[in-house]
């Protein structure tokens, strides 16, 4: 066990991935000498060379498109999209090419690439630096999507994603990059797509991912003082989702609350709610409910605290949820 920040844990995980296989490459803007704008790739180019840790010209579609070509030749490229809001120029290459070529080639092409996406807000950034685009990718068959929330998960999940044979959108909550946590360098905590129960509880199942896991745990602490016992599940896998773990919890608590930074409409939370409603209909004591951002473009960050779900808004929604009862 050792303690480090999530940014450092990702750095260490990437280092191990680069060490494990010469076909692992890294490609992104400013990832070389600078070490990435979040320093996640700090020192990797120095140690593994410019041919493996590649500073990319500023063209996101090309970063992903060339990684698709590299995958066709058996390389596993870890792409860094500098900020969530810059992924859209690469959208076509992700959804039309990376997602489909395994199918179209009847399995001949292995699309082993990881698209690292620093996502979500909460860092007081300017425009285009705080978005939650994960649902676009969850919606696309052929892609896999995960989100880490702790340094330990970051360390292990990035290695698992690199080893995976399908294209993985790897969402990193940038507001948690500097949070410290214990990292077990010897044993992975779970499978790449497994949901993990972060806090057991009896009254309500709270599902969160990325930045909102911490909010959920803080809300659970506050609710405990009011006599409410929340179970917090870190979803981790967004495609596929470990709905078995969520459903098993809801069958005990009878209540589901999903917390997400994304707007609520057609979101990851929408899928969790819909799937649990189908699976756990006769266990639900109250409507399965989402606490989300709002259906507006990401606002000026001076008012982002009201846009993103807060502990108070979670508790406020929880009160409403608990009013339904039988």
């Amino acid at each position, binding site marked *: 066990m050792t303690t480090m920040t999530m940014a450092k844990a990702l750095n260490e995980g990437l280092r191990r991935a680069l060490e494990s296989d010469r076909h692992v490459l890294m490609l992104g803007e400013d990832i070389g000498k600078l070490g990435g704008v979040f320093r996640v790739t700090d020192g990797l180019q120095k140690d593994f060379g410019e041919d493996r840790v590649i500073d990319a010209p500023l063209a996101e579609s090309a970063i992903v498109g060339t990684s698709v070509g590299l995958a066709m030749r058996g390389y596993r490229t870890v792409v860094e999209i500098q900020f969530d809001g810059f992924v859209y120029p690469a959208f076509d290459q992700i959804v039309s090419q990376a997602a489909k070529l395994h199918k179209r080639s009847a399995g001949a092409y292995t699309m082993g690439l990881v698209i690292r996406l620093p996502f979500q807000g909460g860092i007081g950034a300017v425009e285009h630096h705080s978005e939650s685009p994960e649902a676009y990718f969850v919606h696309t068959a052929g892609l896999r999507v995960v989100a880490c929330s702790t340094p330990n998960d970051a360390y292990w999940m990035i290695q698992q994603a690199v080893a995976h044979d399908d294209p993985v959108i790897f969402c990193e909550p940038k507001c948690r990059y500097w949070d410290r946590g214990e990292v077990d360098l010897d044993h992975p905590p779970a499978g790449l797509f497994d949901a993990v129960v972060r806090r057991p509880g009896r009254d309500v199942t709270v599902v969160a991912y990325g930045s909102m896991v911490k909010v959920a745990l803080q809300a659970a602490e506050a609710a405990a003082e*009011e*006599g409410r016992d929340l179970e917090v599940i870190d979803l981790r896998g967004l495609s596929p989702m470990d709905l078995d773990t969520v459903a098993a919890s809801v069958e005990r608590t*009878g209540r589901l609350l999903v917390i997400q930074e994304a707007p609520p409409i057609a979101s990851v939370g929408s899928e969790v709610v819909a799937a649990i409603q189908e699976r756990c209909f006769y266990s*639900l*004591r109250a409507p399965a409910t989402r606490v989300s951002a709002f259906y507006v473009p990401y606002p000026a960050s001076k008012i982002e605290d009201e846009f993103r779900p807060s502990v108070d808004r979670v508790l406020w929604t929880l009160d409403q949820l608990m009013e*339904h*009862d*039988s």
Partner: protein
Amino acid sequence: MSVFLLPDVGEGLVEAEIVSWKVAVGDVVTLNQPLVEIETAKAIVELPSPYAGTVTTLHGAVGDVIEVGHPLVDFDGGDAGESAPPLETPAAPPAAEPAESAESTKSSAAERTPVLVGYGVSPDRARRRRHHTPAPAAAPAPAPAPAAPAAGARGPLVPRTTPPVRLYARQHGVDLETLTGSGRDGIITRADVEQALRAPVPAPAPAPTRATPLGPTRFAGHEIAGWDEGPREERIAVRGVARAMAEAMTASAFSAPHAAAWVRVDATKTMELVAALRERPAFAPLRISPLLIVALALCDGARHFPGINSSFDAASGEVIVRRQVNLGIAVASSRGLLVPNVKGADRMSPAELAAALTGTIDRARTATSTPDEMLHTTLTITNVGPFHVDGAVPILPPGTGAIVAVGQIARRPWVVGDAVVPRETVDLSMAFDHRQIDGALASAFLAHVGQFLEDPAPAMIAP
């Protein structure tokens, strides 16, 4: 014979006009030999022959309009090896269709709506729907509804309840449409279903199920786990209504010295009166129950023995006698015990009191009592009969002098003259604050109430 159907060549084609024939009947044509020039909505197109053989029929003359999928040319001696129906053509003999079930649904090229880059838009498939037949269910079918519920123009509303209660009701054969919800916003609660299961005229008994017996699991304002499911020991935070009840009961029990008295009465005439009132049009919209008669009896008793309607003010060393009955009713609500009151119950006509009681009880059950209803109770009824017990020794709501518990009304043996006959009897038990109410006063009051119930009609008329 082989038939060439006018294909959908994906050009926005639903029909085509014959511009010129390149062959005549009797011509021997080769594969891909031009047969005909057609004009579609977009262009003039030459169609090559899909067969080698002799032309036997040309369907249509120059200028005729042929619909896509309809015969264009018939051939004799079409070489099977060189001819086949288009992948999407309906004229194919069924035997030529692949065996897979999915394939047998292939729709007609003729029916497709043309588009720019494909075979065209599929028409709606022919309906071949078979209903899903579920495996035999473990749970019994729900009991038939005894009565049709009120239906609006678009049919009755679905009874509002939560899925677990819906499942519970179904497992026990309770028709939710026959229930009135006592929960928030009129939602049917588990308790409502449980009450329906205890009702004297139950729905046809459900077949035995595997389900473990489900008893009330509400406790201290919570839904708690069953005996086998929950932990050996469990601590539950007491909040809200449950906490209010605990505090009120403690305050009352350890400030007012409680004493009790009880009486058994023949309530046969009370039950007859209730039945008679239910027949009267003026009472039709009201909920008439023995509770109404008990309430009238208590008000009448208070009028005769005002000391009962009193409270003891220890701080000032005074006793407060009130000449208005704010009649409290103990109600088991979805959130716990609530005791709202009907203000000035003693001045109300039987119909007014019936209406007031109904409203007060309904609001309490849905936990929507007004704050005013919760204040200044002077005399209280607690109706324990529905819980199948004969009596109880209640604790006084703080600030009141007496509380009367009404047991279950049931046919019991009763001595009339020298005969033992079945009568509808009920036990009334009363707790009172012994600081200001002595045994004599309490007994006199309770006996008066009992007599009222033994023969309520004259008592209601008497001043």
